């Protein structure tokens, strides 16, 4: 449902207070899975309920003036790692999703993954002030007598009954409260504030890796942090722009209801690219002489904490081994509630040779789009530094660069998504830079480099603003 539809329904039928508005990450990946025959393109939204803004369904309302009047719920509760990596329709609390993905034993018809998925959703209470949410949504077509996905009706029925039985058992144990959609909308409004984020530190429960992702959503952004890539931000949606994005026949986006990204590691590559060029990611490189190590190659784990209005992701320290010197470094990713910005801090815990010249290059490679294909970047405006000394580059695919020693800001304005993104630092001795891309690397880079010493803590802000 686009915002225009929600606004129309709310105006015409004011008693409606809850709606199934989207399906999490059901975009180009789901489209491909159906041989490009299922026109559901809405990546980029929240995975758990939210109050949509009047301007854009995906982007939560920041205040009463933006409140669309309904509580939105996504269709299904989906695996926040498996659905991002692959086909969304195989990894949700729709029991037949689990059958479709063949995540069951063919002989015993058992599927512990379904219960693990429900339980991991319950576990999200730890990151959301004690609140967690889960839903199952099964249409009659999924219980048809002809069977589906190589399996007979009897297994379809069993999976539905087992799923409901598990909810029932949890309810009897006092671990679950079942609500109608309207009841849930009332509960949600009574227990959530507009700016309170939804957080999910999600672990792999299917593939046997140790991979963790952290998802964050509030009225100003949706972000994904990947601990398998040293805490790099691998998906970023600038909700702060609250893009007016009508969908349907007669609009500029007939089928495309996704909220645009600035970073998306699957559609615009991430750290790894073929041959040349760069993919979208927010990471850092540690440099020693001619050697350079990207933190994307430092696999680690994270713990979550909340201090006041800050949601803090503290990563386990990582070791960077150069030919002659070793560096131990710890990353924290901090989301201050309601501020539309992310702080990434790096603490240099140890350097094996105090005399070695080590530097850090904090960077963000980005672009914009909703699909796998690049968009026209010629309207993008890059600049580095403030005031009259700022150096500007109007994007023309010429692979130009600009840097200023002592500058504290690198900026990009991206008119098609009405977004300004900046990297800023408080350090006086950093060099800020911007890089333009070229035809076969149609990205831009914002960054800053700085020498580092043992014991030092370096903070870099990623700031998102609406730019008309």
């Amino acid at each position, binding site marked *: 449902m686009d915002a225009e539809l929600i606004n129309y329904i709310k105006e015409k039928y004011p008693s409606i207070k809850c709606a199934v508005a989207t399906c999490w990450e059901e975009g180009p*990946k789901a489209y*491909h*899975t*159906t*041989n490009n025959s299922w026109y559901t393109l809405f990546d980029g939204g929240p995975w758990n309920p939210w109050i949509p803004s009047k301007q854009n369904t995906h982007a939560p309302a920041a205040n009463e003036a933006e409140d669309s009047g309904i509580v939105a719920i996504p269709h299904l509760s989906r695996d926040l790692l498996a659905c991002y990596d*692959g*086909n969304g*329709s195989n990894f949700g609390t729709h029991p037949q999703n689990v059958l*479709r*993905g*063949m*995540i*069951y*034993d*063919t002989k015993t018809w*058992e599927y*512990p*993954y379904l*219960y*693990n998925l429900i*339980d*991991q959703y319950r*576990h999200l209470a730890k990151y959301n002030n004690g609140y967690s949410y889960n839903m199952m949504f099964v249409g009659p077509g999924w219980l048809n007598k*002809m*069977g*589906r*996905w*190589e*399996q*007979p009706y009897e297994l379809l029925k069993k999976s539905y009954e087992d799923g409901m039985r598990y909810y029932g058992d949890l309810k009897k144990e006092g671990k679950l409260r079942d609500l109608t959609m309207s009841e849930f909308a009332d509960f949600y409004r009574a227990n959530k504030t507009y700016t309170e984020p939804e957080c999910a530190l999600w*672990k*792999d*429960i*299917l*593939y*046997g890796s140790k991979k963790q992702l952290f998802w964050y959503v509030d009225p100003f952004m949706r972000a994904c942090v990947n601990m398998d890539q040293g805490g790099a931000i691998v998906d970023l949606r600038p909700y702060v722009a609250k893009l007016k994005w009508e969908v349907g026949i007669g609009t500029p986006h007939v089928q495309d209801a996704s909220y645009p990204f600035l970073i998306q590691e699957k559609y615009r590559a991430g750290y790894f690219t073929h041959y040349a060029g760069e993919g979208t990611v927010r990471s850092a490189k540690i440099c020693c002489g001619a050697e350079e190590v990207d933190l994307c190659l430092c696999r680690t784990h994270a*713990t979550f904490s909340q201090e006041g209005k800050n949601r803090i992701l503290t990563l386990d320290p990582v070791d960077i081994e150069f030919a002659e010197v070793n560096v131990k470094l710890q990353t924290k990713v901090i989301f201050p509630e309601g501020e539309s910005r992310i702080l990434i801090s790096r603490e240099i815990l140890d350097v094996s040779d105090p005399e070695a010249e080590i530097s850090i290059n904090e960077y963000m490679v980005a672009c914009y789009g909703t699909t796998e294909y690049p968009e026209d970047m010629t309207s993008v405006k890059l600049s580095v530094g403030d005031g009259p000394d700022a150096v500007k580059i109007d994007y023309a695919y010429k692979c130009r660069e600009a840097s200023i020693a002592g500058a504290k800001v690198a900026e990009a304005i991206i008119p098609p998504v009405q977004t300004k993104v900046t990297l800023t630092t408080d350090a006086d001795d950093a060099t800020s830079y911007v890089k333009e891309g070229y035809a076969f690397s149609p990205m831009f880079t914002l960054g800053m480099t700085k020498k580092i010493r043992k014991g030092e803590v370096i903070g870099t802000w990623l700031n998102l603003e609406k730019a008309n």
Partner: protein
Amino acid sequence: MAQSGKGKLNYRCPSCFMRDLDIDMFYDKEKKEYYCLRCQYTGSEEDVLEKNEMIRFRYRKMMERITDFD
């Protein structure tokens, strides 16, 4: 040669399934085989069921009940 039809269940192409494509196959009664319209896979019911299970090589924790989510 008569037209093909669906089999008794919607059997998906194992080759396409392995690349995240859900494509129902059709059944050729004369050759007694399922075949994929999108790729070149053909096989018996037994072969389809066996090959589709290949997707499970990814699911190393598929049958494990997990209680620790930290």
